[in-house]
C-alpha cells in the first residue's frame, strides 16, 4: 500500500486508520503518520466547530414582522407580471397591424384606391 493509497482512503474514511494494513504503514512512514494526525485532529474537531448561538425570545416576532403583507405581495406580483403585460401589449399591436382588414371595410382590397374612391364619393370621413 502506497502513501497515496493510505492518504486517499483515510480522507474518505478517517476511522480506517485502525485497519491493520494502514496501521502498519503508519507505523513505518513518519510523513503519513504526521499527515494522519493532523487530518484526524481536524475531522474530530469538526462536530464541535459551530457558533453555538441560540435564538433569543424575540426572534419569531422579528420574523413575523418581516412577513410580506397583501399590499407588498400585490406590488410584487404586479412587478413580476410587468414584462408579461408588455409582451402581450406588443403582440396585440403587432397582430392588429398585420391582420387583414375585415371584408366590406373601405380599407379592404387594394386599400389605397378603395379608400380614395370612398372619400371622393363623399361617403364620409375616413372610417
Amino acid at each position, binding site marked *: 500500500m502506497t502513501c497515496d493509497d493510505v*492518504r*486517499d482512503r483515510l*480522507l*474518505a474514511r478517517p476511522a480506517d486508520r485502525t485497519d491493520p494494513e494502514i496501521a502498519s504503514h503508519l507505523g513505518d512512514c513518519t*510523513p503519513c503518520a*504526521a*499527515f494522519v494526525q*493532523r*487530518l484526524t*485532529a*481536524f*475531522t*474530530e*474537531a*469538526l*462536530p*464541535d*466547530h*459551530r*457558533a*453555538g*448561538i*441560540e*435564538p433569543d425570545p424575540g*426572534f*419569531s*416576532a*422579528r*420574523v*413575523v414582522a*418581516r*412577513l*410580506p403583507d397583501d399590499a407588498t405581495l400585490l406590488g410584487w406580483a404586479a412587478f413580476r407580471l410587468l414584462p408579461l403585460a408588455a409582451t402581450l401589449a406588443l403582440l396585440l399591436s403587432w397582430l392588429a397591424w398585420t391582420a387583414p382588414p375585415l371584408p366590406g371595410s373601405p380599407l379592404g382590397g387594394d386599400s389605397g384606391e378603395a379608400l380614395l374612391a370612398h372619400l371622393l364619393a363623399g361617403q364620409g370621413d375616413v372610417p
Partner: protein
Amino acid sequence: MYVTTLTMSPPTTADASRELSSEEGLVTAARDGDSRAFAALVRAHQRRVFHLAGRFYRRREDVEEVAQDTFLQAWNKLASFRGDAPFEAWITRICLNLCYQRMRRRHGREESLDDFDLAAPGDLGRRVEARVETARLLARLDPRDRFLLQLLHGEEWSVEEAARRLGWSKANVKVRAHRARKRLRRILEEEDSR
C-alpha cells in the same frame, strides 16, 4: 385529525385548538395566511435552524440573518410544501441551500480567525489548539468544500443523508466530497512540506 375534519358537526373550539396544536394544522393555517400559526412553526424550528446556520457562520448577525431568510422563504413557498416529508426536513433544506448560496457569493471573502469563538469556556490546552487549527484550515478551504465537509464530518451525515437533506443526487455529493477532500489533502501536504 382527519376524523375530526370529516365529522358532520361543525368543528368546535376544541377541534380547532387540536388542529393548531399539530404541526400539520399549523402548516395548513399558515398556508391560509395565519401569521400566528406561522410564528408557532418558527418557534418550533428556530433552534434547529440556528444550530445549522451556526455551523457555517460565527457571527450572531450572520446566523440571525440566515435564520430569518430561511423562515421568510418558507413563508413564501408554503404553498409548495406538499407534506410528504416532515416540515423539519423541508426547513432544513431551505436553510442549507441559503447557507450554500451565501457561502458561494462570499467566495474569496475569507472568514477571519477573529470570527471564531476559539477559547470557549472549558477549553484547555490541546483542545484550544485543535480548535485554532480547525478554524485555520477551514478558513483556507473553498467555501463550497467547507460546506460539504462540515455536513459530512461536522454533522456526521452519511452521503445518503446529505444528498436527501440537500436535495442533491448521491453522485453529486460523492463527487463534491471527493474534490473537497482532495483539496484538503493538498493544503495539509503543502503545509507539511514547508
